[in-house]
C-alpha cells in the first residue's frame, strides 16, 4: 500500500512540474514562433511578389474567413495606394499539399506573382517549382478571371498540375471575396 501511494505521488509531482514548466515556456516563446513562421515560411515569397512596396506586408495584414477557413491577406502599398494583396492558396502535389503565395493587383485583377512557400516534392524534380521561378513566373500578368493552363515542368507533371489547380482554386476564392478585400483595404492608405 505504501509503495502504491509512493508511486502515485512521485508520478503526479513529476507530471505537474513538467506541465507547469512547459506551459511557461510556451507562453514565452509563442509570439517569437509566430513571427518566425511568417518571416521564414511565407516572408520570402511575399517579399518577392510585392517587391517595391513602400510598406512591410508582413505587418500590414488582415484576415477574412472563407468557407470556414481563415485566410491571411498581406497588403502591398504602391505609389501611395493600397492596390495589391498577397494571399495563400493550396495545391495538391506529388508529396502532399503545396502552399502557394499569390499576389494580385486589385485595380485590374492581374496576377503580379506566384511563389511556392511550403512543399514536400521530390528534390531536384518537383522541388524546382520553388527554387527555379521560371515555372511560376508564367502566371504573371494573367487575369484572375481567366486562368489558363501553363507549360508544365518536364518530369514533374503532378507538381505542375497541382500548382495550376491551386492557382485556379485561389482565383475562385479571390473572385468570391473581392468586395470584402476592397472593404478591408480602405483601412490601409
Amino acid at each position, binding site marked *: 500500500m505504501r*509503495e502504491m501511494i*509512493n*508511486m502515485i505521488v*512521485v*508520478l503526479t509531482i*513529476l*507530471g505537474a512540474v*513538467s506541465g507547469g*514548466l*512547459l506551459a511557461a*515556456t*510556451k507562453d514565452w*516563446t509563442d509570439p*517569437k*514562433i509566430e513571427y*518566425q*513562421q511568417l*518571416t*521564414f*515560411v511565407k516572408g520570402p515569397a511575399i517579399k518577392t511578389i510585392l517587391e517595391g512596396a513602400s510598406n512591410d506586408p508582413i505587418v500590414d495584414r488582415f484576415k477574412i474567413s472563407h468557407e470556414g477557413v481563415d485566410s491571411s491577406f498581406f497588403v502591398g502599398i504602391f505609389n501611395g495606394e493600397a492596390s495589391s494583396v498577397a494571399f495563400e492558396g493550396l495545391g495538391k502535389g506529388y508529396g502532399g499539399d503545396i502552399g502557394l503565395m499569390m499576389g494580385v493587383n486589385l485595380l485590374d485583377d492581374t496576377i503580379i506573382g506566384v511563389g511556392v512557400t511550403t512543399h514536400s516534392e521530390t*528534390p*531536384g524534380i518537383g522541388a524546382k517549382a520553388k527554387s527555379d521561378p521560371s515555372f511560376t513566373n508564367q502566371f504573371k500578368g494573367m487575369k484572375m478571371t481567366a486562368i489558363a493552363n501553363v507549360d508544365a515542368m518536364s518530369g514533374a507533371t503532378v507538381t505542375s498540375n497541382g500548382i495550376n489547380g491551386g492557382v485556379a482554386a485561389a482565383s475562385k476564392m479571390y473572385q468570391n471575396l473581392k468586395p470584402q478585400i476592397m472593404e478591408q483595404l480602405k483601412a490601409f492608405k
Partner: protein
Amino acid sequence: MAKTLVQEFTKGLWEEIPPFRLVLGLCPVLAVTKTVENGIGMGVATTFVLVGSNFFVSLLRKFIPSKVRIACFIIIIATFVTLVELLMQAFTYPLFLKLGIFIPLIVVNCIVLGRSEAFAFKNGIARSLADGLGIGIGFTLALAALGAVRELLGAGTLTFWETPIQILSPTIQPFTFMIEAPGAFVCLGLMLCLMNLVGSK
C-alpha cells in the same frame, strides 16, 4: 572496474560511439543526415535532451519507485524534448523546418531512454552528466560524419550556417541516390563495416 569521470566521457566518443558501436537510435540517423548541418543540429538537440534527462534521472533516482521508472523517465525526457522543440521554433526556425517531425521523435530515441535506464538510474550525478555529454557529442560527430559523406557524394556540397559550399566540381553529376532514404542505409552500412574493420585490428 570503476572508471574515472574522464573515461565515462570519452567512452562515448569512440568505444561506445552511437550509432556505430552502440547501434541505437537509427531512425533519426537515417532520416536527417541529408546535410552536415542537419546532422549537427539533430546531434546538438539530442545531446541537450540526453544531458538534461541523465541529470534529472540521476538526481531523482532515490525517489523514483523502480516499478514506475520507465514512466518517470518518459516524463522527464518528453519535457526536455518539448523544451527543445519550442526553443528551436523560436530561435532557429530554418533548422526546425528541416528536422521537422524528428525533433519530437527524440522522445522515443533509444539512446536517450537507454542511457537513463542503463546508466543514469544506477550512477551519480557527475558520472551521469559526463556519460550524457560524451554519448551526445559522439552521436553528434557520427551524424556529422554521415551527413558529410552523404551530402558530398549526393549533392557535391557541404552546408554550414545555411550556405552550401561547393566542394566537388559542378561538372561532376552528383550521385543523388545518396541523399535519398535508401542511400542512408547503404552509407550507414558501409561506415559500420569500416568501423568494424578498424576496430578488429
